[in-house]
Every structure is written in structure tokens, then in C-alpha cells.
């Protein structure tokens, strides 16, 4: 019988643990698994690096290194080898934000912006209480305040006609009006589409499918050329209001479909339980169904806000000067004509639009994650 004593060598203590091979740790390991795991991936990585080398340095050069940051006219921007003409954006910044809004009254626009942010921030943070009152402020109180402040004519504020409005102001006015009107109208249409009453259901379906089936451009054309014919002689809307009506109807149809998705996601038992409690249709909707349905579709609502925000740029086709429109208008200003002016202007507009949309989409993802917990098994 062999015992431990008979053996030539017995390990008495543990050997020190060897460090893993160098190609299995750190950056090398990461690159081996993520960039060069196979022949195809190696080729793709090399192509990718070449593509980045081809595109990124010239872009950085154009936007930052050889860009013109200060200057008073095109003379500074047409020097050979010059990149983006940021001086143009700097000189025109006021116009890009407010359009031709009376200079001495621009504080009113700023104040409206502050009032909006004051309502939005507590609304966006889930922990802050009084959501109902907050929504009421954003959907009812704020729009009234905004109209009084922006348009003027009351309380000693001088009247500023909408033809003077422009830039980011018009973009935001169109987008926010679209959002504020499309919420209640969209909810009503969604309820109509799920109603038991055939006439109501039919009319809702026709309304929704009509607006969803046509491009926004034709809606804006319709609002700008057909609306004046439909109204009694003498009634004349200004251009901005006509575009707002078109955008609001268009976005309501999309909002209705989003809300309908939420209504369908609510279990049947919720409806039945509410009815068993003896709640009337509207109380059932207001107290039981809608709070749940709207919560489920917050990401969808934000997404349709994002597309609405991007679509506002179309108002320039019917002759309004939103952010994009006013930037385009300034390309024809001879003091700033240079080969780089259009690209610079578009880059600025793209950045502003991108920032708004990106923030909204991040918020949508954040809420999606937050709300998802209850349904995750």
C-alpha cells in the first residue's frame, strides 16, 4: 500500500497563482475579442479605422482648427483654407433665436422660455410631487401666459405681430402648440376609435387615417391655401396660426395611435373592475384607464414629440421663418456670402435640432427603463 511517505515528492503548500497569459488580460484581450476575433472582423476593423481616418480629421479641421471664430464680415471667412464660418453664426445669433422680434421686447421671449423650463423640469423628474397640477400648468396656464407675453397687446405690453417672429422661437412655438393640442385631441380620438358607438368609431378612424395617410407638406399647403377659402369671408388668420392648425391636426392623429396602443395594453379586467364599481364611462377613463395607459406609452408620446419637433422645420416651405428658415434666409445676406456659410449655418441648425431630439430620446429611454420594472418578470 502506498502512502504519502513513500512518494518521492509531495506538495506541501499551494503554488503561487500564475498571472494569466498577457494576451488574456487588459487592452490586448479586449482588442482580441472585440476587434480582431476573426479574419472578417480584422478586415472590418481595418476598414473602419481607414474610414474614420478619412472622414474625422478633415471634419475636425473644418469645424474647429481652421474655423473662423471671430470676424465682422465675409472678408474674414473667404481666406483660403478657412473652415467653418462660426463668426456668421455669432453675428446672426439674435436673429436665429428670435427672428425679427422687436429688439426691446425680446425679454418677453426669454421670460416665456423661463416659465416653460420652470414647468418642464419638475414634470420630467419623477420624484417631484404635484404632477397633476404641474400638467395643468403646462397644458393650460402656460399656453395662456405664453400667448399674452409673446403676442402682447394686453397689460401695457406692445403688440408684436407674428410676421416678426422667427428662428428658434417659431420652431418652439409650432412644436409646443402641436404637443399641447395633440395630447387632449389625440386622447379623445383614441377613445373614439375604441368606442362602442359605430358612428363615433367610424368618424375617428376616418379622421386618424386621413391625416396619417398624407404627407405633412400637403397638410401645410392645405392649411395655407384651402383654410382661407373654408372660413367665412372676412375672417383672416395669419400665416403662423394657419400652419399651427395644420400641424396640430396632423400630430393629433399620430398621438391618437400612440394612445390607442396604451389603451389596448390595459388588461380587460381593469375595465370590468371599473364598471363593476359603478363608475361611469368618463370617470372610468379618467380615474382608472387613462392614468395607466398614458404611463405605459410615455416613450411613444416622447417619440412622437421628437418627430413633431423635427417636422416643424417644414413650415419654411409655406413661408414661415423657423430656425432653419431664418438661417437659410441669411445665406443671401451679401455681407456674409462665402463658400462655407451654407455648411456652417446648416451645421448650427443641425446641432440645435439634434440636441433637442437627442435629449428627448434619452429621456424616453430613461422612462422606458424606469417604467419597465413593474412588468419585468
Amino acid at each position, binding site marked *: 500500500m502506498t502512502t504519502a511517505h513513500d512518494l518521492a515528492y509531495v506538495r506541501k503548500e499551494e503554488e503561487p497563482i500564475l498571472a494569466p497569459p498577457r494576451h488574456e488580460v487588459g487592452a490586448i484581450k479586449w482588442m482580441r475579442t*472585440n476587434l480582431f476575433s476573426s479574419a472578417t472582423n480584422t478586415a472590418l476593423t481595418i476598414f473602419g479605422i481607414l474610414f474614420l481616418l478619412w472622414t474625422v480629421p478633415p471634419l475636425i479641421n473644418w469645424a474647429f482648427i481652421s474655423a473662423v471664430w471671430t470676424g465682422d464680415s465675409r472678408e474674414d471667412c473667404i481666406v483660403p483654407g478657412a473652415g467653418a464660418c462660426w463668426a456668421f453664426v455669432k453675428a446672426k445669433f439674435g436673429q436665429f433665436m428670435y427672428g425679427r422680434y422687436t429688439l426691446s421686447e425680446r425679454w418677453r421671449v426669454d421670460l416665456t422660455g423661463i416659465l416653460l423650463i420652470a414647468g418642464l423640469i419638475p414634470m420630467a423628474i419623477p420624484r417631484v410631487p404635484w404632477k397633476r397640477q404641474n400638467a395643468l400648468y403646462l397644458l393650460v396656464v402656460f399656453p395662456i401666459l405664453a400667448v399674452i407675453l409673446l403676442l402682447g397687446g394686453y397689460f401695457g405690453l406692445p403688440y408684436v405681430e407674428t410676421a416678426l417672429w422667427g428662428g428658434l422661437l417659431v420652431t418652439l412655438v409650432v412644436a409646443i402648440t402641436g404637443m399641447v393640442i395633440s395630447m387632449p385631441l389625440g386622447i379623445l380620438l383614441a377613445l373614439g376609435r375604441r368606442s362602442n358607438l359605430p358612428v363615433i368609431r367610424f368618424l375617428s378612424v376616418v379622421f386618424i387615417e386621413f391625416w396619417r*395617410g398624407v404627407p405633412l*407638406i400637403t397638410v401645410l399647403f392645405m392649411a395655407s*391655401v384651402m383654410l382661407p*377659402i373654408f372660413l367665412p*369671408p372676412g375672417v383672416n388668420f395669419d400665416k403662423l396660426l394657419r400652419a399651427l392648425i395644420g400641424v396640430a391636426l396632423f400630430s393629433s392623429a399620430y398621438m391618437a395611435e400612440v394612445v390607442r396602443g396604451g389603451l389596448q395594453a390595459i388588461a380587460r379586467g381593469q375595465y370590468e373592475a371599473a364598471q363593476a364599481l359603478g363608475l361611469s364611462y368618463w370617470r372610468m377613463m379618467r380615474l382608472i384607464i387613462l392614468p395607466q395607459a398614458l404611463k405605459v406609452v410615455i416613450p411613444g408620446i416622447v417619440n412622437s414629440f421628437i418627430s413633431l419637433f423635427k417636422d416643424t422645420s417644414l413650415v419654411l416651405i409655406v413661408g414661415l421663418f423657423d430656425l432653419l428658415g431664418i438661417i437659410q434666409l441669411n445665406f443671401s445676406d451679401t455681407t456674409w456670402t462665402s463658400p462655407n456659410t451654407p455648411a456652417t449655418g446648416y451645421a448650427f441648425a*443641425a446641432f440645435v435640432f439634434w440636441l433637442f431630439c437627442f435629449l428627448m*430620446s434619452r429621456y424616453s429611454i430613461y422612462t422606458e427603463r424606469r417604467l419597465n420594472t413593474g412588468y419585468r418578470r
Partner: protein
Amino acid sequence: MTVSDPVTTVREHVSRRRSIGIYDPKLRGFAYQALTLLALAGFVLWIVDNTIRNLRRSNIQSGFDFWDERAGFDISQTLIPYSTESTYADAFLVGLLNTLLVAVIGIVLASLLGFLVGIARLSGNWLVAKMATVYVETLRNIPLLLQLLFWYKAVLGILPGPRQSFQLPFSTSLSNRGLMVPKPIFEAGFQATLIAVLVALAAIVVLSTWAKRRRENTGQRFPVFLTALALLVAIPTLTFIASGAPITLSYPELKGFNFVGGLDVKPELLALLLGLVLYTATYIGEIVRAGILAVAHGQTEASYALGLRPGTTTRLVVIPQAMRVIIPPLTSQYLNLTKNSSLAVAVGYPDLVSIFSGTVLNQTGRAIEIVSTTMLVYLTFSLATSTFMNWFNRRVALLER
């Protein structure tokens, strides 16, 4: 003496109470609907009355009689013969065809790029995945109109003239006149090649039916895909050579200040396509990614457990299930692309909206007729698409317990 059954009494009582009064849901529903219809009818009458009065007051003619009148304006790109002598109906048709052209090319290119991007975002290659993410997150959040204008004015607009144009491979060149490519000119005898393509397609159908039946009966496989590809290439090519290569290329040549010959892809079309494809592809990429992620991982594992190889698993297990999720939103993206092609008006591409709701509307002043016709065209597209979607959904719907 009859004693009334208490249950019957209660039921009668309830039914009597339900049948009268304002609390009867049926009666209420009826009343609501009647009220809605009345209000709607009143609204419509009001609009019609206003319209008639407005039209009479401003002496605007109405009706569709302008349709056969001479249009008298020229269009830069036409797929059918068109001149200033043509009628408004011809102009409408030119616009419609131009819209369809952009839509079809755009859909094909956006699908290709979109599927590529969707797969790239799921790639194990970190660099490829990140690049696809940056592309999607950037272009998705910038308005399409801005992108179109950027391509048209800031990129294609500042290209050099034809004399200093960029030379690309295959006698192609890029200048501010657009992309010049060789134009194929089909001569007599080319029909034979077209017939050969049809023959090849028929042969492929027969072959795949036979191969499927044989596989079901005997279990033997036949390399259908490769054989089909070979047939599709070989038969037309052989016919083409045998019939004496009846196709010549017209190369673009620089004469004076412009190109002569060749096919000119106008900057307007180029900008519109670039914008539409790059924008829509971001959405398609996200749809494809979501579709692939929606296929449960257990499906892949089960397939491996059955001994299927990774390629076969992707082709037979993952893709068919992913397609079920992908196709409905994909169709609505195709519809969006078609509707978004109406932004052509901003870059001056002669599509339906730009010709019909633009030039024709300005010349005839028949706002109501023209805008509603345009809307009707797009509505038809969208209703046709949703009919297809309903059919498709019924066909592929999961039949569960």
C-alpha cells in the same frame, strides 16, 4: 288567483326601468351619435357655404376642366415624353412617376443600408457597432428637410463645374450638374436577353419545386441557391453574347461647358435620394436590430442542439422569425419614405407635390381641386400599404393555443 313570481317581477321592473329615461345606455349612445352627426353635418354645411361664397366673391373658377388645358411649363426630369405643349394631366403623370421613381430607388437603397446598419449595430466588432450607433443617433435626430438642404446646397451646390468635375471610375463624373454616368442604349435584339431572364426565372421555379419535393421524399439535399444563381447569370449572358451584344454605352463627353451623351443624374434627384436613404436607413436599422433581438435566444440554442450549423440557424430559424417582427414597421417606413419624398419641393426636384401642388396650383389657382387630388394620391398609397399589411399580418400571425 295568480301569484306573480318575484324573480319575474324584479326582472320586469329592471327592464322597465332600463327601457325608459335618460339612463338607458342604448338610448344615450344613439343620442350621442345623432348629436355628433348633426354637429358634423352642420360643420360641413358651414364650410361648403363659406367656400361657395368665397369662390363667388373672388371669382375663382372651380372644377376639373383645367385637366386638358395646355400646361406651358417645362419640367427638368421626365420619364415620359413631355413638352411645354403637354396638358396638365401629362404634368400630373410626370410628377407622379417622378415620385414613384424616387420612392422605388429610395426604398431599395434604404433597405440595403438599413439592414447593413441593423446587423452592424449587433456586430461583435466593437468599432463597427459603435460606428453604426453614432450614425443612427446622429442622422435620426436631425430633420430630414435640413439634411436634404445640406446635401443640395452645402455639398452638391458647391461642387466644381463640368470642366473641373471629379472623375470617378467607369467614366462617371460628379460636378454641379449632377452625376454623369454612361447610358446604356438598347438596340434591336435585346429582347432576346429579356426573354432569357424570364426563361431563367421559370427554370428556377421548376428547379426549386423539384428540389423541395425530392428533399421531402428522400431527404436528399440539392444546392438550390447556387444552381439558381448560376442559371440566372449564365442563361441571359449566353443569350446576350449569342445575339451579338446588342447594347452600347453612351459615354458622357465634355463639349463646351456641359456634358453631351451619357445619363445625367440631376443634383436635385441625387440630394433627395441621399437625404431620404441616409435618414430612412437609420429607422430601418433600428427596426432590423429590434427584430433580431426579439427572437428569443432559446431558439438559437434549440437549433444548435438539433445540430444545425450557425449559418443554417440564422437562415432557417432566426431570420424567418425576425422577419415577422420586422416587416410591419418596415412597411410603414417605406410609406414614410414615399410621403417624405414630397420634401422634394424644397430642393426643386419635380415630384408630384412640387409640380402639381406647386407650379400647376400657381398657374390655375384651383387650390381645392389640386390639393385634394394630391392628398388623394398619397392616401391611395397609404391605404394600399395598409391593405397589404393586414393581409401579411393575417398570413404570418402566430397561431397559438
